[in-house]
């Protein structure tokens, strides 16, 4: 218990970085995922193909590889930099990699939502003369979003937990690195581990509870 108290400030600072990463990635991955799902159901084969290739490639690549590549490949070799400060640069590279990775899962969740919309809705939208974009925006997506609140919550929980993999992109400030660093100094400490687990659970459990509550409230009565 003493170790946990002694190292608490460092661990808390690391955990705060996890939360920052999670908040930014939630924003970017939800937007990118929505664009992707619109591409995947578009009337244009090129867009559908591009969306499908993106999702297949990203979803089947390990996150560790995505993040390691965004640091070593994109940044070091191909010269993509966000900032001259190494830690800020790697922070944004993690945001980039994790958003790219998560958006594929957001897209799949939304697409499964589109699949739950009864056929009659799309037929009715066409019958009253809505174009593809109109029917997607006014009829299909609102219902799709409402039916995937719970799965999207799970995607966001997984993403929050995945912020710990940031260490693979050389971002050495968030809690998994802080924990490893502390273990290197003091040896393994069960209280520190349990403290971090508790910290993550205080974030992920409410997301889950909120998501299932909202899912119940938003559910489309059919």
């Amino acid at each position, binding site marked *: 218990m003493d170790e946990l108290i002694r190292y608490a400030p460092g661990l808390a600072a690391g955990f705060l970085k996890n939360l920052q990463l999670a908040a930014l990635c939630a924003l970017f991955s939800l937007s990118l995922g929505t664009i992707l799902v619109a591409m995947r159901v578009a009337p244009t084969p090129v867009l559908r193909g591009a969306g499908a290739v993106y999702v297949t490639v990203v979803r089947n690549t390990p996150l560790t590889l995505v993040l390691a590549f965004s640091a070593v490949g994109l940044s070091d070799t191909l010269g993509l930099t966000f900032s001259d400060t190494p830690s800020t640069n790697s922070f944004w590279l993690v945001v980039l990699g994790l958003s790219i990775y998560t958006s594929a899962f957001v897209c799949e969740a939304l697409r499964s939502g589109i699949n739950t919309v*009864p056929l009659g809705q799309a037929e009715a939208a066409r019958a009253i003369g809505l174009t593809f974009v109109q029917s997607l925006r006014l009829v299909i997506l609102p219902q799709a979003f409402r039916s995937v609140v719970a799965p999207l919550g799970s995607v966001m929980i997984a993403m929050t937990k995945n912020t710990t993999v940031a260490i693979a992109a050389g971002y050495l400030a968030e*809690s998994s690195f802080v924990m490893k660093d502390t273990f290197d100094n003091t040896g393994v400490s069960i209280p520190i581990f349990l403290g971090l687990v508790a910290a993550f659970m205080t974030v992920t459990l409410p997301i889950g509870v909120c998501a299932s509550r909202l899912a119940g409230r938003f559910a489309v009565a059919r």
Partner: protein
Amino acid sequence: MSSGSTVLFDAPGPVARRRNTILTLLATIATLGVAYLVYAKFDEKGQWNSELWRHFISASTWTEFIIPGLTGTLTAAGLGAVFALIFGAAFGLARLSEHGWIRQPAGAVVDIFRAIPLLLLIFFMAYLSPTLFGRGDYTLLALVGGLTLYNGSVLAEVLRAGVTAVPRGQSEAAYALGLRKAGVMWHVLLPQAVTAMMPAIVSQFVVLLKDTALGYIIGYQDLLSYGFQFLPANYFGTRVSSAIVIATIYIGLNMTLSALASWLDHRPFAPRERRTLAPREQRLAPASE
């Protein structure tokens, strides 16, 4: 693309056809533009240089780096899958127990291990093992242990959901025939639950296989370490080309498993569903993680 999404738009008339053509044209230009941008960037940094790719033709690259790496990855994934199934079966059944003193602790264990970030769990086990068992290489143990606890907990939930989803009449009929609790579970509920949940179970194996790459971070010698660390260390400047090759291998492996999952989901004896926009596309729980 699923045939189902075509119902989102009608057989297009002249105006819509023109609009679609323009959209297709713009989309093609945009896609090609992005592709060219990537190509040009690679070209600018000399990544298409044949020097950086040539060693993938030589046999030694494969026998010394990629095959051993693949073996490491598949060993971890195989062990993890077997133990996760055992863990999942045990805890899934425990959560269905009629005795609160079995059900509640099992539920707590499953919930906690699903909530812990997997990497923290793996780190913890990697640092805990030497303390418990003395010096040695525990990277495989930590990796498989972490994968087992996390994926086993998810599988426990999948199994429980499967058993709960079997219509109540099935177990009532079984009890009426005179079977006992264990018999009802073993002969009636489990076979139906496992059949219905097979796609979800296989999708979870895809997650497990991808997560073996976390071993790279704790120094386990898997495909990612061999391909992304040892290989570029031996052939200077091949980080990007190596990453592309091993990513292709990972994608191939996972797509094979995903194809198995969707084949299982489309079997003739798979449970039926009501008619929606796309038929039975995404019934596999989206593998989030």
